[in-house]
Structures are given as C-alpha cells and as structure tokens.
C-alpha cells in the first residue's frame, strides 16, 4: 500500500473550530441538513464562499508527468491537452514504421537480389551483356561471345516452366511489397470532423485516414479482410522466396501448403508487420451500436478500437455521467473483457507511460484491442492542474486503470491487471491531511479520497454541497467513506460529509446529498468488482484461509493431547520399573545370590518386555539399518565445479559415460553410477583445471577402494 501522504508545505490549510451552538439553533440547523440530505435542496441560499475539494493536493506526486518525454532514443515530448492520446498513438505508429523498415525492408531487398540471381541463370544472353558492360574499354581486344562460352555456369539446365512462373510471380509481389513498407503505416477510421482536423494539423501523416460511415464496426471488419488478404500475399511470397533462395523449396510439400495459405497461418511477428487498422470512436456511439461492435470483437480480427469517453466531468461542456440513481454507468472495459478474446486497456491521462505502453501493446497484440480512454485537459472551471484532475479520476475510482491481455495465457492473474491504480488494495485511497487549528497547533486528519471528493474538485459541483459551520458539528456527522460502510441500522440520523476548502484555504466540512452517496456506492461496487476479479478481497480465498486456520488449530491441539498422554504413560511405567528394580536389588543384596542379579538386568533394560529371547532378536533387526543410516550422509557424490571447467575434452573424451557438457559447454557428471569410482578418480587426476571432485565411492564392492579413496582425497 502506498504510504499515507501529507499535504505539501506552503499549502497551509486552516481549520477553525468554534464553540457549539445553542441547542435550539442546533436543532433547526440539523432539520435543514436532513432535508438537504434527502432532496439536495438548500433552503437558505447564504453567501457561501467558492469552495472545492480539500484533498486534491494530496494526490500530488513529486513531479508532474507532463511535459512527458519518452525513453532515450524515441524522441517524444508532449504536454497534456485534448490531443495527447492522438500524439502518443501517432508516435507509436511512426516508431513501428521505422522498425518495420529497418527489420524487413533490407531483408526484402536481399531476397529480391537472390531471386534475380536465380532468374539470371536462365537468361544466358545476360552474361555477354554484363561482360561487355564491365570491360567495354577493352572491346577491341576481347571477343566477348567466345569468352562467355568459357565462363562456367552454376546451373547448366534451364529452370522448369512452373518454377520460373512462380519465381517471377513472387518477385513481382516482393517488389511491390517494398512500397508497402515505405509509405503508410496504418489505416485510421474516424469521424469526418476528426479526419479533417487531423489533416489540418498534420498529425497522422503516415497513416491513411478514412471517414467512418454509418456502421464503422462493419466497415472496419470489411477493411481488415481486404487488407489482410493482400498482406498475406506478401508474406506468402516472402516465405516462398526465402525457401527458394535457400534452395529448400520442395514442390511435393510446399505447393500444397501455399495453395491454401490464408492470414490465419501468419505468425505473431509477421502479423506485427501488418499495417494496423485503428478505429477512433466515441463512447456514446459504441453503446448505440452494441450488436455490430460485439460482432466485430467476436470475429477475433486483430483490429484496434480507441474508445474516447466524452461523458466525463473532466470534459468541459459534456453531459457527464454523475447520477447512479437514474442510470448505472456503462463500462466498456467490463464489456470487452467479457468477450474473453479482447485486449482491453482503460486509462486516463495521469500516467502517460502506462498509456503509451498499453497502446503500444494493443497495436502489437494479435487479439482485437479496445482502449477506453478518458480525456483531461486544462479547465477554466477549476484551479487544479489538469494532471491532478486526471489523477483524481483514477483515485476517486471514477475511471480506474484496467489492463486485460487475453494472450498472456495460463493464469487469470497474469492476464488481468488493476495494480496500476492508486492504492489498488484499499476501497478508497487513504491519506493524512495536515491542518493548522490555531497559530501553533496542527491537526492530522485521516481522509479517504472518494468519488465525491473527485467531483468536488470542480467548484460548480462543490456548490451543490452544503457547508456546515463548525458550531454545528456533532458526532452524527460521519466522513463519507465511513458512512458507506455503516450498517443500515446505524445509518439512522447520520449525515455524510467531505472536506472542502475555500480560496483562502479555510477548511470546511460539507454535507453530501443522497444522490451523490448513491453514485459513490455505484463506483465502489464497480471497484469491488474489479478488486475481486483482480484477486483482492476474494471471498473464496478468505473462507479457505479461515477454515484452514481452524483445521490447523484443531490439529495442534490434538497432537498436543496425544503427546501429553504418551509421556504420562511413559513416566508412570518408568516409575513402576524403578520401584521393581530397587526391590529386586534389595532382595539380591539381602539373599547374596548373584544369579538373580544377572537375570534381572536384561529384563529391566528391555523396557519390561516379558520375553527376553524375542526382544534380542528384535533389537538386532533394528540395529542393522540404523548403522547404515548413520553412514549414508557421509557418502558424498562425485561432482564437477562446472564454472571452472576449461572445456578441454579430456574427461568427456576418455569417460563419455560419466562426463557430459552443459549448455555452456562446461562439464558435469550426469550419473555417477554409470562409471566406476576408479574412472572418476582418474579423470580428477587428469583434469587440468582440477575441477573434478570424486567424493566417496557409490559402490562399496569395487576393488582397491582404500587406495582410490586415498588418491581422491586431494581433489575433494
């Protein structure tokens, strides 16, 4: 968990607490307060100061992540505005373009040269032309046609017609593919307005911009089918060319294979060369066309969809989702995760490197990808910096960060990640706020950053709250985060509040109306849903742990009881024996008869066993394995200090049954029992690096063991 933060120095928050008001005033105020809680109406509209959330400063990290610059060689510097996601996308696409060209274009050129060479063999007259071109300064002295006859041909026979046709076809495809890797790098489908704007501002210069039609999901699906077909032709040609140039193309095997070659045969790294298709779409549009959206995802085509959410408080002028009492928020991320095969990213602008990486992986992934992004920009409505608004969005669980990659297989915990959120293991992020109550004294207040606190960052929203003058404080005022945890019975009479400050940094408590509380509850529900599928607060795990603890305690108690009982038994028996022995000795001394004494000894030693003859046999049986067990740890197996091995082949050549090379080509003993101890000792003596340690013999029946052990001593 992140450590609780304290408001930075200089942002001195002042908190004045006054004497309680008289009981009459108190009663009438609280009556009004309760009315406010239910209805959200303020009866008396007094001249209240402009207020906003007191907690927003706690979200500040050491530095603002903007202007954001990328790692080392990839130059990128962006500030936070409404263009940020496009600039990041544009940068990723350009990087991809550079990489593709670097990786693939050279190889293509090589293949084209290779193919030309193959075809060249066919073209005999070319030899003469080439000779003339090179040595034309000497054309009076040399008869080129005769010289050509003397040049040895690597292949005397003409190529079969079918192969010739194939080579020419492949060559043509590859030559045209060079263009594919030189110009555009992606296809972007977006609304007309956006396309115009992008062209004006020259953002996606290296991408083809297409205006979306009525059903852009269907449009994207068709676009993909068309483009991937021509792309698979290129890869098909590439593979044929590679096989041909390496002389590995076998008609019998490969003709059939390439006849049925479709894009489904493409490998991940090949698909990465494909120009991605990106659809830019608004959040509201998505939910209007759910059927065709879902169909596109189910087709499992690796297209990328950027869903831009405009229905947010942070987008000025938008109609944002705020009120859960009328409608629950629609969550695109939850929707796409439930499709199972969709790479899903949900991110705000507060962490540009997370966003960059998420988008980059989305484009790389061979699964369909949906990135749900929130936009935060400089906002005249609030004093808070735009990145703090973005951080508030995540912290207030309004727009949590989600990452789901279906291709990270095996474990759900690997595929689904929500740990990038602020304090991902708590319900709301917890902080400590410093406030000065008078000139000298300071108070530390534990606070939780809720969805209401995020909303109150905007003064126009904070206006909806009711400030509570400090003379009306009672224990019935409960912090909102605690209020949400209370049982139904204990809710009665309580009013939830959050902390606000005015422009002079005076601290207030402000009552929160029921509408806000319901919305907070809805956000918290979604957050718990994420936490549970993310493995935090898992009911099954908790239950399993509890039941296991009970089991453990019971087992410990049982074992303790058994051991106690056993010892009790033993003690009583020893007592009895001691008494018996003393009595026998006493009798012996009295009678002076040695026989009795001699006989009595074994019987006492055998723990009171009735039959001495049977007990001695038993004792022998037990004692033999005991001796072996004592010796066993002393047998040290032969081993090689592989790090020191010089790979000189001495041991591996002479005793290949014993010594093998590991991946670093340094020797080790695979199985010491596959050779004799004498062989191991000999190898140790011969080893120039003295890194073979023979240990002790495994087989005790080998001859001359004593001498061998002595020889081995100095190598152990």
């Amino acid at each position, binding site marked *: 968990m992140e450590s609780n933060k304290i408001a930075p120095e200089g942002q001195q928050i002042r908190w004045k607490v006054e004497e309680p008001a008289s009981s009459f005033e108190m009663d009438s105020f609280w009556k009004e307060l309760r009315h406010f809680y239910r209805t959200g109406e303020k009866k008396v509209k007094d001249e209240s100061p402009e207020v906003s959330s007191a907690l927003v400063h706690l979200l500040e990290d050491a530095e603002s992540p903007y202007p954001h610059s990328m790692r080392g060689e990839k130059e990128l510097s962006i500030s936070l505005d409404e263009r940020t996601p496009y600039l990041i996308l544009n940068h990723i696409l350009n990087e991809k373009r550079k990489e593709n060209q670097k990786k693939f274009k050279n190889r293509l050129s090589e293949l084209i040269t290779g193919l030309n060479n193959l075809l060249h063999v066919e073209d005999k007259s070319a030899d003469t032309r080439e000779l003339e071109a090179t040595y034309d300064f000497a054309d009076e002295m040399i008869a080129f046609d005769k010289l050509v006859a003397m040049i040895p041909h690597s292949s005397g026979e003409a190529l079969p017609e079918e192969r010739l046709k194939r080579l020419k076809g492949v060559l043509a495809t590859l030559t045209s593919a060079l263009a594919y890797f030189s110009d555009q790098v992606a296809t972007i489908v977006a609304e007309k307005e956006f396309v115009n704007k992008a062209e004006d501002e020259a953002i996606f210069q290296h991408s083809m911009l297409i205006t979306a039609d009525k059903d852009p999901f269907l449009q994207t699906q068709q676009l993909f089918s068309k483009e991937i077909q021509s792309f698979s032709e290129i890869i098909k040609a590439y*593979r044929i060319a*590679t096989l041909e140039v390496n002389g590995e193309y076998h008609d019998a095997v490969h003709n059939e*294979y390439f006849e049925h070659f479709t894009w489904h*045969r493409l490998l*991940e*790294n090949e698909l990465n060369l494909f120009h991605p298709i990106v659809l830019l779409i608004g959040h509201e549009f998505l939910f209007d066309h759910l059927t065709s959206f879902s169909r596109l995802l189910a087709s499992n085509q690796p297209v990328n969809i950027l869903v831009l959410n405009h229905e947010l408080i942070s987008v000025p002028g938008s109609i944002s989702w705020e009120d859960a009492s009328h409608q629950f928020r629609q969550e695109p991320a939850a929707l796409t995760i439930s499709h199972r095969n969709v790479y899903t990213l949900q991110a705000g602008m507060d962490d540009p490197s997370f966003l960059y990486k998420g988008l980059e992986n989305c484009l790389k992934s*061979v699964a369909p990808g949906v990135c749900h992004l929130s936009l935060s920009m400089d906002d005249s409505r609030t004093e808070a910096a735009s990145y703090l608004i973005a951080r508030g969005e995540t912290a207030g669980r309004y727009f949590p960060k989600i990452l789901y990659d279906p291709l990270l297989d095996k474990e759900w915990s690997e595929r689904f990640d929500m740990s990038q959120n602020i304090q991902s293991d708590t319900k709301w992020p917890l902080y400590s706020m410093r406030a000065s109550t008078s000139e000298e004294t300071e108070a530390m207040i534990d606070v939780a950053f809720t969805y209401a606190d995020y909303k109150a960052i905007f003064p126009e929203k904070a206006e909806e709250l009711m400030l509570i003058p400090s003379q009306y404080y009672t224990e019935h005022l409960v912090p909102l985060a605690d209020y949400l945890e209370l049982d139904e019975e204990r809710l009665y009479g309580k009013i939830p509040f959050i902390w606000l400050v005015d422009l002079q940094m005076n601290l207030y408590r402000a009552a929160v109306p029921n509408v806000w509380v319901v919305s907070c509850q809805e956000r918290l529900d979604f957050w718990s849903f994420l936490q549970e599928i993310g493995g935090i607060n898992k009911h099954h795990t908790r239950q399993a742990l509890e039941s296991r603890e009970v089991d453990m305690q019971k087992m410990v108690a049982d074992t303790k009881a058994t051991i106690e009982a056993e010892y009790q038994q033993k003690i009583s028996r020893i007592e009895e024996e001691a008494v018996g022995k003393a009595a026998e000795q006493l009798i012996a001394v009295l009678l002076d008869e040695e026989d009795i004494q001699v006989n009595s000894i074994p019987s006492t030693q055998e723990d009171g066993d009735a039959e001495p003859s049977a007990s001695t046999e038993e004792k022998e049986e037990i004692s033999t394995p005991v001796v072996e067990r004592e010796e066993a740890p002393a047998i040290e197996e032969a081993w090689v200090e592989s*790090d020191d091995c*010089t790979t000189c082949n001495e041991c591996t050549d002479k005793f290949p049954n014993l010594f093998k090379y590991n991946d670093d080509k340094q020797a080790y003993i695979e199985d010491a029992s596959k050779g004799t101890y004498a062989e191991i000792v000999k190898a140790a003596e011969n080893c*120039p690096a003295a890194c073979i340690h023979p240990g002790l013999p495994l087989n005790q029946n080998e001859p001359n063991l004593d001498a061998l052990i002595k020889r081995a001593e100095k190598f152990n």
Partner: protein
Amino acid sequence: MIALKPDFCDVSLPDANYSMEDYSSSKARWCSGCGAHTILHSVQKLCQEEQLPPEKTVFVSGIGCSSRFPHYMKTYGFHGLHGRAFPVASGVKFRRPDLHVFVVTGDGDCCSIGAGHWVHAIRYNMNMVVMLFDNSIYGLTKKQTSPTSPMGTVSNTHPAGSILPPINPIQATLGLPNVSFVAQTADWKPAHLHATLKKAYEHPGLSFVRIVQRCPIWMKDSYEPTVKDPDAITVLDHENGIHLEDKDLKKFRHVTNHDPSDILKAREMAEVVKETTPIGLFYQNKEASRYDEYGAHNLGISTEDRIAAVNSLMDRYAI
C-alpha cells in the same frame, strides 16, 4: 485463438539470433586436454555474445597446432603459410574494413618464422584481435624447442636441454612502436580468458593477447605445477583493465593493481616473470594511429572512376 504455432514451413524473420551452433564447425581434432579447446569455446561464445555475422567474420592463421583454428569456426577462414598470418590478415582488413578479423598464431608461427611480420603488424595497428597460443613447444611436429621454451627444456632438438633464454612475447611487443593493446591470460582460467578476449575485441586497434597454453602431451611436466599451484598466477587488476566478476576474482590468491595506461610500468611488469605469471591487461592506448583507416579512404570508388584511373596511369607509358 489465431494459429500461432510454427509449422514445418515457417521461416524465421531476419532478427533471429545467432546461436553457438552457428559458429561451430567440425569437431576439433586437438588432443584431449589441450588448452586450445578452451580458447575455441571462449571465442565462439564471444562471437555469439557480440552477434558477429558469420559471413562478416574472418579467422586467419599460419601453421601449427593453433593454426588449425579456422577449420573449427563456421565463419570465413584462411589457413595460411607458416609465419604469414599477419600479412594476410592485414591485407583482409586493409581492403575490407567492414569485416571482423581475428588472427590465430602460435609461439613458432609468430615468434620464430613470423617474427618480422609480427613487428610490422603491431606497428600498423589495424583493428583486429591477435591470439598468440603460446604452449612453449612445437607440438604438431612432436616436441622441438620453440623460441618461448624455458631454458633447459629437453626436446628432440635439444636432448640435453635448451641453452638460450626464451623470448618474452609480452616484453617484445611492448617494445614495439605504435603498440596499442597488450594482454596476457591463461587457458585454464576460463573466466579470465573470456573477459580478456572480450576486452580485446572491444579495443579499436590491434589487440595482442598472449594466451599461456597447456600442452598436455609434450609439456606435461612443465605446465602441471603451474596449473595446480594457486600461487603461480598474479592478476593485474584495474578499473580500466580486464573486468572480472567478484566471484571470479576471489578465486585468485594474488591480485596487483596495474594501470594499463602506463607503458613504462607495463614493461616493468612484463619483466617480472620469475616467480608468478602476471595475467591481465598490461597496456592499452586507444589513440594510437591505425593503418587500416588510411587504407580504407579510397573504398567505394565507382568502377568507371577506377577504370579512368587505370587508363590515366597506363597513358603515362604511351609512346
């Protein structure tokens, strides 16, 4: 999901890595226990680590046990004339500066018949790695005294023991003009050997590495005490020297600090070989002049210009 499992016909993309197998050719035919096996493995590992394209790498050798080396590398190689590894390698580097050139030579090949070329190769200081496999004996021809055999070595040419003091290749190289990199290592210290070769590869210029090498067949008596004695070796350690991991450095009993930029001190260190063999970087100067840079200045001239140049030269002899 999409078919991602490679099938029989899939072709790897060009960013595929070179593996150790891409550098190893046939099985090395040196005697079992020979130190050359170690060096071969270390060099292959270096090529793999540095991802040297096999078609851009050349191993040039002369004659001797060591000089069989190019046969065991799956790169280009030139098994040359006795003592002439240096001029061949210099020629390769002079006209093909894009190639990675390695010279493999032995104590006979370099210090005896090839000594003249040795001197000038050091002075030319072309960018290449020279590995002197010094086992102090002619092994390929079954035990004759070499220029680096210790005094008193009994061999077929000196049945009563050799009578001349041996050449010290480190000392000799350090005495040559324009020398830029001199290091010494031992084949039975694989970590140090590898670190030295790596450092030599990274050096811009001719890096001369003498590798003290065991001959388990003909010089068994001479090397065995050295190999088994922990006091026989002193490591020259410095932040600019050969970099060893702490765990590897701890295996040595004697470690001395030596600054490889000080040539006078380096010559002094090379002189003291009485009790212990110093291994490490004696001297390095990255600023020394390189003759290959001079040689490469006219590369890339078009065929037409060359023909024109030849014609103008020929015209001078026209009558």
